[in-house]
């Protein structure tokens, strides 16, 4: 599972990354989380708001933070 967090360093983006790492830990999944901060890369995903969560090249979430609970549910179903 390849996870990307799209964001340019604002507190929301950092919080999403933090929650995502925690969710992975809870689920016991080993996955790579990549932070995408370059504009050219971000716009490839067609999202309108940050932060955004991309799992295996599919945009799952954009424009808000999700808490650890929501992320664990989300990632569990992606396995």
């Amino acid at each position: 599972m390849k996870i990307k967090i799209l964001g340019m360093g604002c507190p929301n983006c950092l919080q999403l990354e933090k929650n995502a790492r925690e969710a992975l830990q809870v689920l016991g999944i080993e996955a790579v989380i990549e932070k995408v901060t370059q504009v050219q890369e971000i716009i490839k995903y067609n999202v309108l708001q940050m932060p955004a969560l991309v799992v295996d090249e599919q945009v799952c979430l954009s424009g808000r933070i999700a808490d650890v609970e929501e992320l664990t549910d989300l990632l569990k179903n992606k396995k």
Partner: protein
Amino acid sequence: MVQELVSWIAVTVLGLEPGSRFEQSLNFFITDGMTILVLLALMTFLMSLLRFYLPIEKLRNFLAKYNWWGADYLLAALFGAITPFCSCSSIPLFIGFLGAGIPLGVTFAFLITSPLINEVAVALMIGLFGWKITAIYVVAGLLMGIAGGYIISRLKMERFVAGFIQGKGQDGTAAEPARKISKAVVQLVAKEAWGIMKQVTPYVLAGVLIGAIIHGYVPRGLLEKYVGNDNVLAVPIAVALGVPSYASAHSVIPIIQPLVEKGVPLGTALAFMMATVGLSLPEALMLKKVIRWPLLLTFFGVVSVGISIIGYTVNAVW
């Protein structure tokens, strides 16, 4: 009414001297704090519900499709008002809108109102300033968006948008089928609204605390000497101070209201508020990545002038 109750508790139960500075501060903090939190919870929930049915992809698709003979500026301004704003979203939003074919001026109308008008700002303003002034603020913000967007479109500055965006012709994310109201939706929205409240409340209370201190301890008329209507340049100075500042509505508004009580003219205060909340250095730095100096300066310039005009007008007629 709440204020009287709080006063009574402060004086009778806590033994505070009525009218004392501490009692005034405490009263402000509790009365206004409570009113604001209730309004905030209500507005956050309603707006989250609204946004559930009008997600931004739908707004973008709508703006791209219909131009309604120029009313699209009004629509963009309204859509911006209901959309929450984070400076880091300005780029993907800007690119996404342009890529979908939405004109530059219309996109800017959205970008102008989005940070200015949001449920937190409105809740705070109703709680602290009352309906009338809040209505003035909202209308002023919308006019700012419409006028600003229109002016930018007339200046034909499309050539200052970074090359890698133009003609990108992004496919709109497919609009989802219409969402129905259901208990599950309400629960989901309530949860999201609660999350927002948890995040925002500490900052709101901090702002109300500072406001309470100003309310109780700053002598009336002190500020009038420096920023009263005698100083013709007060409004542009307020705007110049506010523009680079990065603070959100919930930090600025609770501080502004007691200042107005203490003698700062309403127009000057509103101008400062709009400049602080509506424009910021981080937003400029973000946009700089996708638009060039002439357009960026024009954007900031037009909005600053507009806010100053609003400030002078309110001072003159209020």
